[in-house]
């Protein structure tokens, strides 16, 4: 792998060739390998389960491969499977390993050093995606062809928020690396930009913001079922009647309660993979709710989830003297 | 029929009696508060009703008092979930909601003149009791009646007084069994399907009706097949999670059939036409 800055296209082709070669070697001992194939139109990739050598040809790799495929792993316990994962996805694997929800020896991980994936909602806001005829990538842009013509948009303007401040482009755990590793290219400072946007609002504006955004939530639980750490989705507290946390009504009250419940159940665990916001069919910006907790936990305990499997999550432990916690005096 | 205007609206009834059948099963005798409705309440043996505990919800139970005795409606309830838990806390005088009768019923017309072989397990005795009492009230319409009834232990057998009566009757045969040996138990020991194989009742001119936990049903159906019973001769009832009880909410389907309106009573022949999703 030479380090000459090759065009995005060439790099993607090289990475894909690397992936296919690794799978050809590994597929024998695996139930399947989970990757991406082209979806229902050139703008949408879709998770794809490679079961035979013939399937390998359908694999793709480009900035449209947005899904965090590790959310399938907890339900596949007991079967040896291959998984292709980006840097951010690998943090989910580390977190799942740390919590004992998957076994390392049941995984063949093909890691991809990733330069960023798109945010479909951002693209949909700028392009009429009802009829996509072709999508291609140039050095720094995505070109989308529709019956109304060809539109070229700088990639940075439609990248997912998590990618704009990506600190872990190269997977933290892998068996094969499908490209040259490289370190963070993006400013860490932008990590909590969206959170700060909300923090600037006063309390009444925040209340109004969440009321407006969550009003269109349809309680379909795509955000929960897409989350790699929501392993108890079949017996979820949100639908429990004992304890009866909240009703089945579709009022804003219940929708806010669910978002808080999901965020709190991810406190000190969420690896900022963005699946919750990406999966939402109503494009509701909910990732910043989980990211707010990540920000507080980083400040309080200097801790980031999904980095080192040996770590103990901060809320699983304590210090007798907590340097960063100042209790209220009366 | 249930409230024709709004099939979702339960009628209020008062519990006049609570019988502790077994540590996990209670029978409730309910009278509808609206006397007119109570007198005109008609149903067929095997039909079900949705019992409401307001605040907990509704659950489906067979009306296991026979249509020939309409002083009250009886429901036998095994403690399993939230609604049954609350039902088990009910005492005489408490109010419940009743929505019914719903679903189909045992095809007793086609069973006339035939020998009837009941095979019940645990709470599965509830639907069989309705039909048995109905047949005993129209005894001459039917041939020989046998009841093979089993449970985990002697104290898990429901309707203890009636079991004594049925044992004393000369126009029906009662065979009781429990899963394993118990000190004061002098009758048969063994799982219902195995006892059935030992008894090996001939299929000639017989209808076999079986209700009980899924595991018992599976092996009982196998045993009946081995004994030569044709699919049309075997009748059972199915359990499903139910909400609306009137074929609209979509959840109790097996293929094209809804257990709440096309069942819960099915012949094995009908079941075999459905996709295997029991």
């Amino acid at each position, binding site marked *: 792998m030479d380090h000459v800055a090759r065009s995005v296209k060439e790099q993607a082709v090289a990475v894909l060739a690397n992936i296919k070669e690794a799978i050809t070697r590994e597929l024998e001992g695996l139930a*399947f390998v989970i990757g991406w194939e082209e979806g*229902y139109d050139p703008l949408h*990739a*879709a998770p*794809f*389960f490679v079961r035979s050598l013939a399937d390998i040809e359908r694999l793709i790799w480009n900035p449209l491969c947005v*899904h965090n495929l590790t959310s399938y792993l907890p339900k596949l316990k007991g079967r040896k499977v291959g998984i292709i994962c980006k840097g951010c996805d690998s943090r989910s694997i580390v977190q799942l390993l740390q919590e004992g929800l998957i076994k390392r020896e049941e995984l063949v991980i093909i890691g991809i050093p990733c330069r960023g994936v798109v945010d479909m*909602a951002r693209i*949909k*806001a700028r392009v009429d995606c009802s*009829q996509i005829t072709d999508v291609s990538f140039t050095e720094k842009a995505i070109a989308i062809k529709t019956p109304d013509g060809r539109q070229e948009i700088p990639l940075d303007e439609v990248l997912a928020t998590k990618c704009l401040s990506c600190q872990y482009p190269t997977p933290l755990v892998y068996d094969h690396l499908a490209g040259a590793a490289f370190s963070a290219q993006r400013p860490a400072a932008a990590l909590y930009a969206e959170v700060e946007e909300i923090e600037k609002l006063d309390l009444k504006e925040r209340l109004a913001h969440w009321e407006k955004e969550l*009003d*269109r939530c*349809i*309680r*379909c639980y*795509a955000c929960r*079922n*897409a989350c790699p750490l929501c392993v108890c989705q079949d017996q979820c507290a949100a639908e429990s009647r004992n304890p009866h946390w909240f*009703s*089945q*009504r*579709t009022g804003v009250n219940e929708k806010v309660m669910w978002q808080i419940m999901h965020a709190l159940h991810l406190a000190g665990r969420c690896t900022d993979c963005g699946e919750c916001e990406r*999966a939402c*069919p109503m*494009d509701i910006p909910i990732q910043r709710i989980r990211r707010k907790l990540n920000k507080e936990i980083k400040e309080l305990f200097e801790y980031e989830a999904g980095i080192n499997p040996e770590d103990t999550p901060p809320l699983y432990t304590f210090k007798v003297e907590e340097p960063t916690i100042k209790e209220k005096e009366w | 029929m249930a409230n024709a*205007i709004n*099939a*979702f*609206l*339960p009628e*209020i009834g008062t519990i006049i009696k609570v019988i502790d059948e077994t540590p996990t099963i209670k029978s409730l005798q309910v009278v509808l508060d609206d006397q007119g409705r109570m007198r005109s309440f008609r149903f067929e043996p095997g039909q079900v009703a949705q019992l409401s505990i*307001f*605040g*907990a919800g*509704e*659950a489906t139970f067979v009306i296991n008092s026979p249509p020939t005795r309409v002083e009250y409606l009886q429901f036998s309830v095994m403690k399993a979930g*939230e*609604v049954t838990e609350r039902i088990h806390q009910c005492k005489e*005088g408490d*109010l419940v909601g009743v929505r019914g009768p719903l679903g189909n019923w045992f095809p007793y017309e086609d069973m006339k003149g035939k020998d009837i072989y009941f095979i019940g397990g645990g709470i599965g005795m509830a639907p069989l009791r309705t039909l048995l009492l109905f047949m005993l009230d129209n005894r001459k319409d039917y041939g020989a009646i046998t009841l093979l009834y089993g449970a985990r232990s002697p104290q898990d057998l429901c309707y203890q007084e009636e079991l004594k009566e049925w044992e004393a009757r000369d126009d029906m045969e009662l065979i009781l069994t429990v899963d394993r040996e118990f000190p004061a138990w002098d009758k048969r020991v063994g799982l219902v399907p195995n006892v059935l194989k030992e008894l090996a009742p001939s299929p000639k001119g017989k209808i076999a009706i079986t209700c009980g936990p*899924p595991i018992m049903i599976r092996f009982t159906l196998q045993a009946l097949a081995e004994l030569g019973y044709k699919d049309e001769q075997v009748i059972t009832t199915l359990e*499903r*999670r139910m*909400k*609306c009880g*009137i*074929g*609209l*909410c*979509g*959840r*109790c389907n097996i*293929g*094209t059939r809804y257990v709440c*309106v096309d069942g819960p009573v099915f012949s094995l022949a009908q079941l075999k036409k459905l*996709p*295997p*999703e*029991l």
Partner: protein
Amino acid sequence: MVSLKVLFLAEEKIPVLLKRLSKTSQVFAPVQVSDTVVVFQEFSNGAQVVFDKQASMPPKGVIFPQTEQFLSYTYAKDPENLTRSTVQLDHQVEAKPTLLFGARPCDVQGLAVFDAVFTQGQWQDPSVKARTDATTIVTLLCVKPEGTCFCTSVGGSPTATEGADLALTPVSGGYVAEAITEKGKTMLQDEAFTPAKDKQVKEAERVRAAVKKQDTLPLKQIEQKLIKLFSTEFWEQMSAPCISCGACTYVCPACYCFNITDEPAGMGGERIRTWDSCMFYQYTLEASGHNPRPTKAERYRNRIGHKFSYHPTNYKGQFGCSGCGRCIKACPVSLDIRQVLREATTHG
């Protein structure tokens, strides 16, 4: 198309028309609620009504709201005998006159599935029936089907008007409005409608004829093929990427499954109906813990089986799907129901 009356509705007259009508009835129209999401919402002044894009949600909430009260109950202590309590039930089915403005033919076809299930069957649903009767539907014919549309494969068409009271065909400067039913005719009496010029009627016909034909799915005998595939690995493979959430069912114009729950509050409470999804694990989970559809493969088999085999078998060939493609667009993993149906017809 035999139409009772043909008039013209100018683009700029629509907000005025909707405002006037919302004095006498609840008016639902496709409203832009965020950069990318359009939903059917009660029209209010200043709402940005959007007609050139398929709404993210179907209009089924107009006759089948996601949350609806069946009854409220109140316990009270019986004054004479304090150990006894009384319970008082209260319920009312009320349906205000409603206007659904701007639903597309696939949305209206979805409402036809509700009609078949909730009002034509052995058991009727009073609230859905009341709302259906109280609703006037103005359908907006679809001149620009999307890449995910397949209405022609399931008995529909971008220019279908069955189930609508008034049909609008987009022409330059506005819409040619044709009444389909008496309700549509009375609506045309509103002053916003002006006589349509021949040029406009011709343009409307040209627009309707010019709608691009979609490639139709091979759904012959799909009902039997799906049954034949029942106990095969087909469903495990097809549902492998599925995350078993409720998105596809909640955005579907033809999905009508619901849940009934009691929501207690102190001495009283209410029994409510809310949308439910066959893709949720708890949908068929029994109190005993047994679940006839424990994995997503069985649930997905039932979802496709219901729409393309069980429902058509029970309802004279009517598919439980109107081909709007929302389930494809809303699916977090872009599962394409058309691809599953194509594979079923080849494997079946």
